[in-house]
């Protein structure tokens, strides 16, 4: 079974890639530029967009809306009797499984 880990490229390549990326990012960060007075942006041409700050609530908002994931969230009401109802429902499902499978 240990043979599945013998594809050494599987280990070495991502490791090398991550290490190289780390070094490049670190080296670029260390490099001190000399901006002209009053110049704060690297590139001055091109279309200008206002700087936006993505708050924690807006992370993956389109995915959440498209997949309608909030429906599942609404099932987690925090009300104890709802939880107990789920336990009983779960027990019935387990019982049915056991009766069908054995």
């Amino acid at each position, binding site marked *: 079974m*240990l043979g599945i880990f013998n594809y050494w490229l599987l280990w070495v390549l991502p490791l090398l890639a991550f290490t190289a990326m780390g070094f490049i990012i670190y080296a670029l960060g260390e490099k001190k530029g000399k901006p002209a007075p009053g110049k704060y942006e690297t590139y001055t041409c091109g279309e200008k967009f206002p700087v936006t700050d993505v708050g924690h609530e807006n992370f993956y908002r389109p995915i959440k809306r498209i997949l309608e994931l909030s429906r599942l969230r609404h099932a987690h009401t925090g009300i104890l009797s709802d939880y107990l109802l789920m336990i009983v429902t779960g027990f019935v499902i387990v019982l049915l499984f056991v009766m069908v499978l054995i």
Partner: protein
Amino acid sequence: MIGYIILILIVATFLSLIVRRDILPIGAIIISFLFLVFLAAGSGIVLFEFGGWEAPFGIVWAADKLSMMIAMLVTGIASLVAVYSLRYIKERRHRYYSLLSLMTIGMLGVSLTGDIFNLYVFFEIFSISSYALVAFFLDDYAIEGAFKYLVAGSFATTMLLLGIALLYGSAGTLNMADLSSQILQTPMFLVPLALLITGFGLKVAMVPFHFWKPDAIEGTPSPIGAIFTAVSTSIGIYCILRVLFIFSLIELNTLLIVFGVVTMVVGAVMAFMQDNIKRLLAYSSISQIGYILLALGLGTYLGISGGLYQLLNNAIANALLFLSIGVVILYSGGRERLSNLSVKNNILMFCFGIGALSIIGIPPLAGFASKYMIYLAAWEVSPPIAAISIIVAAFTLAYYLKAFSCVFLNPRGRTEIKGIPLIMLIPIIILAALCIILGILPHLGLYVVEPAVQALTNSSGYVAAVLGGG
């Protein structure tokens, strides 16, 4: 020797309440871990007959390699949590450590006993001490979480007791090895089996029995959150495995696969939508339990090995994440919402990152090794299930990216954490190192896991050892 381990813990628990010394339970938990490592190095099944009464008449503790693995995991994580808590818990420390030690006794007893009623008793010890630990901070969240956990836990233990009573009524014995040789797959047997699976499933927090877990974890101290997500679920999974394999109920694999996939997906989707870091970690741990159940349900040697290895890696990574976040929350004045939790500390950022990458299953960390085995095993049995598990891994990456970005990369309102006590950092660094070592050298982890898989799949050896007296 197994009996002495529990004896040391019991004495330390009660003595610490009287003399008010934290060092007693901490020392006892660490000593019990070292004893277990020493015992696990030997071969065969370690038996301990209470009062010299032989099985099936007396209570027997039978520790095979699977029990040993779980027991070492319990005491190992509990030792790290005990050391870490020295600086985390500021008030009523002797009570906290007594409860932690009692919780360890419960989990240790569950993993080592060969008697199903004895298992129930230790399950209760573990549950009752954990209710008190969840409510330890005595704020609104803690009390409500503990109450919900208490009610759900009482449901679980009532179902277990009823199931055990029905089993005893039909088979006339409580010894698990003896039960396995007497059980006939009759309709009378189906109801107790469903009761036992539901009872253990509640403790595992598999969907749809998972509701209590995020609520309980939200109010609990972070080190106890580490125990909950890391080892308490492992105990539930161990119990389900014991019941299924010792009674040779391989037909129920489909049940594990279905519950595993649903748990994996629901846990990931819920974690994806969280704003509270503790709830996010709780749902993440539920999702990871789904992987373990799925892998064990696949029933192949590779699947079971991957499942047990994932159980080990999941425990280490979850403990690492909770202990790291515990420091973050402690130094941020108790803030838990991602919107206002922003800190700067390179060591914590590195360790949290390692834990998150390991849980996601990124090479070369420990989680990758076990998840890779699960993907391969799932692909052999059913490619669509393998595809679902990979998609869930992508979701895992998404929500950990959000958590990491909000906590460590957000420059607004950032709190700089300086001077973290070494006693809190050491357990975190040990766990992070384990994530890296077990990932680069998966053979080391499999050295512990493979004997456990063999013990699990060869239940006749366990039965013969217990009933033959070793």
